[in-house]
């Protein structure tokens, strides 16, 4: 069991002037589960894409089963027995499970025999690994957990001995994730090698045999999982000891600023994505909404901020209703003091081709201070943008630069500056630190606490449980569109984790 499945020697990869991978050496033993952890942008996905033939390394050597290989395309990777389960599933939505599985591995030019061959092979895999799924179901009708299973089946059907999973649990409930881990266990028992890419340290501890930590494109350490603690891994990941709690004073709750009652939202397929949700947010408190991604938090945010319409329920802002079931207008809500930092800053919160100053008024572009009648008051807008750049330490300090040329953290600061500088009574914010570097995270967290201390109401949605726990005064947990529990900011990770899986705390205790 000690021979190498994959060896990487001196892998380098640059995109333009950005070095995504620096001198990567990695040795993954056959028949093990090897974890690769790192923050967003640490270079994990790039490395795996090189292994799967999506990109070619600028220099370095890849050995599979001890032999030096060249992986120029996914095809080469597949031929070498490497399979990959992508973070965003590579499935054709209107195809059946079977069609998806045989795509690219049809065998012969006509489909009839390859389909029946695949059907029997699928039955075998089902038995061997407990991967049951209806072969004739259409992908778009399947829940994400099952779609992921189809991805795993695809790799196994191609005879993969090495399976790479890229952030596989991001879209799963804890129960589904547990099921996935059992499957991975089974795969390991059958002698397969699994590479698990994640930024969740708990998963590393739960399932892997060994773990490599990546930071800024380099592998900083590789350890046996049993011999390393979560705290150590976290430190390796970010490069210094992380402050798990943000310093904050006691909460002084004030009036109810935002009140949500029986809110229900359905998506385009008619599925209830927000289901009868009610809660209040008071001035001077941060209410965090925890949950696995895709349990309705995004839609809840969008509905409250007027982007998406609800089918029923009410939302009041400072005691006055918002027309959430009809024509709520985000512009109106801003005028009424509700600011919104959206989850997706690239396509929602910012217009990337705009110059920075143009983005500094997005949503506030109809304010009198930026206009002369129907015309834009360009001088005033630029002066205002320069001021915000100073205050929020946006770099580079150039309001004429295209927004796309700022880093993630600076882009987020541009959005924050815009939304906070109008002194809103209520802030609705989603994934405030996604794709943001560590330095900026602290800055952003500090700002949110300041808002709260000034008596503003903050509604925070994040999939990062640590972030929710360290910032929130109260935590609501969403599961399957419903608020399944409310806890204080002191709630333990375990307690919240159970709720996020849809398991009531009391039930679990029984």
């Amino acid at each position: 069991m000690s021979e190498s499945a994959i060896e990487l020697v001196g892998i380098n990869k640059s995109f333009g002037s950005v070095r995504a991978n620096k001198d990567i050496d990695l040795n993954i033993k056959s028949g093990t589960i090897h974890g690769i952890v790192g923050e967003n942008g640490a270079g994990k996905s790039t490395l795996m894409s090189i292994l799967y033939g999506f990109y070619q390394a600028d220099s370095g050597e890849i050995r599979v089963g001890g032999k030096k290989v060249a992986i120029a395309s996914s095809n080469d990777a597949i031929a070498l027995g490497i399979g990959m389960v992508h973070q965003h599933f590579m499935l054709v939505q209107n195809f059946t499970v079977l069609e998806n599985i045989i795509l690219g591995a049809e065998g012969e030019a006509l489909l009839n025999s390859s389909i029946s061959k695949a059907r029997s092979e699928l039955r075998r895999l089902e038995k061997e690994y407990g991967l049951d799924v209806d072969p004739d179901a259409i992908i778009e009708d399947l829940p994400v957990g099952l779609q992921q299973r189809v991805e795993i089946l695809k790799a196994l059907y191609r005879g993969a001995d090495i399976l790479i999973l890229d952030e596989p649990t991001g879209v799963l409930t804890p129960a589904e994730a547990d099921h996935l881990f059992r499957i991975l266990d089974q795969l390991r028992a059958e002698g397969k090698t699994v590479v698990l890419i994640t930024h969740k340290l708990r998963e590393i501890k739960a399932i892997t045999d060994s773990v490599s930590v990546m930071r800024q494109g380099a592998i900083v350490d590789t350890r046996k999982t049993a011999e390393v603690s979560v705290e150590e891994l976290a430190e390796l990941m970010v490069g210094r000891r992380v402050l798990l709690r943000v310093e904050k004073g006691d909460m002084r709750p004030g009036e109810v600023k935002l009140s949500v009652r029986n809110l229900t939202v359905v998506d385009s397929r008619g599925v209830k994505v927000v289901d009868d949700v009610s809660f209040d947010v008071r001035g001077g408190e941060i209410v965090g909404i925890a949950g696995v991604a895709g349990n309705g938090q995004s839609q809840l945010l969008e509905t409250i901020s007027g982007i998406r319409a609800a089918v029923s329920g009410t939302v009041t802002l400072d005691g006055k209703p918002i027309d959430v079931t009809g024509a709520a207008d985000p512009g109106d809500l801003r005028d009424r003091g509700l600011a919104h930092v959206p989850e997706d800053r690239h396509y929602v919160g910012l217009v990337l081709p705009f110059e920075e100053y143009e983005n500094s008024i997005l949503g506030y572009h109809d304010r009198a201070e930026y206009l002369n009648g129907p015309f834009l008051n360009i001088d005033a807008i630029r002066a205002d943008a320069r001021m915000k750049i100073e205050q929020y330490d946006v770099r580079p300090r150039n309001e004429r630069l295209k927004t796309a040329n700022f880093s993630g953290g600076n882009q987020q600061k541009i959005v924050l500056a815009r939304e906070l500088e109008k002194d809103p009574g209520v802030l609705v914010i989603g994934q405030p630190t996604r794709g943001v570097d560590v330095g900026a995270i602290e800055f952003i967290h500090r700002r949110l606490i300041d808002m709260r201390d000034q008596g503003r109401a903050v509604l925070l949605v994040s999939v990062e449980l640590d972030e929710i726990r360290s910032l929130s005064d109260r935590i609501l947990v969403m599961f399957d569109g419903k608020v399944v529990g409310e806890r204080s900011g002191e709630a333990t990770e375990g307690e919240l984790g159970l709720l996020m899986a849809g398991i009531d705390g009391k039930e679990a205790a029984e």
Partner: protein
Amino acid sequence: MEHSFVVAIQILDSTIRLSIPLMFACLAGLYSERAGVFDIGLEGKMLAAAFAGAAGAAVYGSAWVGLSLAIVVSVFLALVHGFASITNRGNQIVSGVAINFIAAGTTVILGQAWFAQGGRTPSLGGEQRFTGVALPFAEAARDIPIIGYIYAELISGHSILVYLAFFTVAFTWWVLFRTRFGLRLRAVGENPAAVDTAGISVTWLRYRAVICTGILCGLAGAYLSMAIGAGFVKDMTAGRGFIALAALIFAKWKPVPAMFACLLFGFLDAVSIRLQGSPLPIIGPVPTQLMQALPYVMTVILLAGFIGRAIPPRAGGVPYVKER
């Protein structure tokens, strides 16, 4: 035999003739668009093929040489579209528009330079054209009432390309839903990333699709100038490429409905030619312009979602860029 029956058969007969170029062009568009490459350059490819076919037939005296040239030229333009929209990830609509103009201009300029007949090619005759082929027993069956007459007049006597068009409908269905190529073609139009990660080249697959488009546009053009017509005339496609596109949307990108949509639009054309302004029973006089505009109006109504919903292939019109 009753006069109205004979007239009906005549109208249906010309319906078939007028539908054929639409059918080839529509199926041509189907290959490309199912693979995720929008093509509003069907018109230009057809036109160029019509010219190349007629010119080739005139010069070499053989319809088959003409047909081959028509296909070669059309495939070349399809590859230009592929180069712009697949390799260079350009805007597919813009590329299609460009090809329409290049074809419209080049056919006339070359036609004038080579044949000096005001942009026309010389009239074709005999071996230079695809003339009607009599199916077996057509003459003998003519006297059998109704069925025999229909067989002899409506089904028999078309050029070989007509039968090829109907065969192509069935063949396309089979390719799309029963072969590996078809599976991949449908997949690449829906989610090219899935195809790429399955180890299949998105680029090569899409190029093969546009080559299919080129071949079929070549047949459509050849039919226009060498079967229905006897030579190339300036701008002879007259918007058929766009009607074919409309038919493709009408058929929701499926081969068999595409055939029916083309027959329907061909029928409208046949009726309007037949009527030439003379009044219809019950309805009264209908302007020919209304009949001509009807396919477009119907397509707009369909697109507006008042009769079903036409959902294009999901990845259509978007160049494929690998994501990290």
